[in-house]
């Protein structure tokens, strides 16, 4: 035995061993399993998977691409938050500044195109799962989770639409949020609202107390709406989507791995 190399010294050190308890994957199958299981990032992957799981012609990799785009949106979104102020006075000018004055002026473009791509890829993912029958038992529950994630993706798109605070944004949200008026029971023009009001004996559901009001923080799209949509867009919906994504990926594995040709 000669003098230990610098790599051997580092790999024998307490610090290295405390981080990588099981060293590098070796020929020993148990060691390979442990290396993956003990690492928080690697354990998200299955220890082994079917060969068909990486067959792109079957999966189209659309779920993976959607997750990748979610990560792109998270990173570019956080970068945009360093400059954007969600107020009627500044919002529009901050969007202009992000293009004209801030370095990497395409950051908002990346965020926007990423958002469009994510909506497309999540639909294609659903389409693929439907075509391959991958929603069938035992994967019914995960299909349900996926439908909720689809809705959350669309809501992220919708709430982000208002933030540039231009005419397109304001009117798109005005038109879109009018749907909330027709929510059963809790929308002031929805089925059941009149019945509810007559049962209660006073006008409990009106334009100032219904679902649309809760969404817009007012009867019209205004500054309070901008702040509300900003918080929903940047904090609330991504948080809920992250939790559901964890459940979604977990169930992919627990329900028998990525589905493959029978």
């Amino acid at each position, binding site marked *: 035995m000669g003098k230990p190399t610098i790599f051997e010294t580092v790999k024998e050190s307490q610090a290295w061993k405390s981080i990588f308890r099981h060293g590098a994957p070796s020929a020993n199958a148990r060691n390979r399993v442990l290396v993956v299981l003990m690492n928080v990032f690697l354990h998200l992957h299955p220890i082994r998977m079917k060969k068909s799981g990486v067959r792109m012609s079957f999966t189209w990799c659309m779920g993976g691409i959607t997750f990748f785009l979610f990560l792109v949106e998270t990173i570019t979104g956080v970068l945009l938050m360093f400059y954007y102020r969600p107020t009627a006075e500044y919002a529009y000018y901050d969007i202009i500044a992000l293009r004209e004055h801030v370095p990497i002026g395409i950051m908002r473009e990346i965020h926007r195109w990423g958002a469009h791509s994510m909506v497309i890829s999540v639909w294609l993912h659903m389409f693929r799962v439907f075509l391959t029958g991958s929603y069938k038992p035992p994967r019914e529950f995960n299909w349900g989770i996926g439908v909720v994630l689809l809705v959350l993706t669309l809501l992220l798109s919708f709430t982000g639409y208002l933030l540039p605070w231009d005419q397109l944004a304001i*009117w798109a949200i*005005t*038109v879109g949020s*009018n749907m909330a008026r027709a929510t059963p029971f809790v929308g002031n023009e929805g089925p059941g609202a009149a019945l509810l009001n007559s049962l209660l004996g006073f006008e409990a559901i*009106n*334009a*100032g*107390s219904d679902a649309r*009001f*809760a969404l817009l*923080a*007012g*009867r*019209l799209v*205004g*500054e*309070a709406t901008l702040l509300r949509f900003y918080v929903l867009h940047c904090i609330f919906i991504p948080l809920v989507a992250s939790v559901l994504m964890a459940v979604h990926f977990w169930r992919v594995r627990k329900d028998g791995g990525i589905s493959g040709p029978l």
Partner: protein
Amino acid sequence: MPAPSFPEAPEGISRRSFITWLSVGWLGFGAAMGAGLTAVGRLFFPNVTFEPPQQFKAGFPAEYAVGKVDERFKKKYGVWLVRNERGIYALSTVCTHLGCTPNWLDAEQKFKCPCHGSGFYSTGINFEGPAPRPLERYKIGLSEDGQVSVDKMAKFKYEMGQWNDPNSFLELV
């Protein structure tokens, strides 16, 4: 074979009272959570909104010329006041298609929505484009000081036969 012996229940707490207190505890916890979540839900309905009031005074009837659409209150309150030979009515500026704001085109004597091209006569009746029903009218009357008063909390829809309601039209003979 001796019968198996079970440990004695501790003094002072019977199975019945344990379950009772467990139920009381869970019910209390559930009620507290329900009340807390209700309070959080209430958070989304602010007590004050920074919007123009729903009721406003719109000047004296003599200020209105017969056959004219008055646009003074469009931007702030979202209302057109129209004077015809019989009186004044207050039209909502919300297009009945998807909720955009139409423009009054005086030369063509019609309201035209820029979003999808719906057109309305000065009465509010729809005649072109995708709008499925006429513009809504708001409650209108005279206040004590003789000014025209408009109340947006009350709406009158033509298709429901509500334009016959005396509150939907300010008669000036």
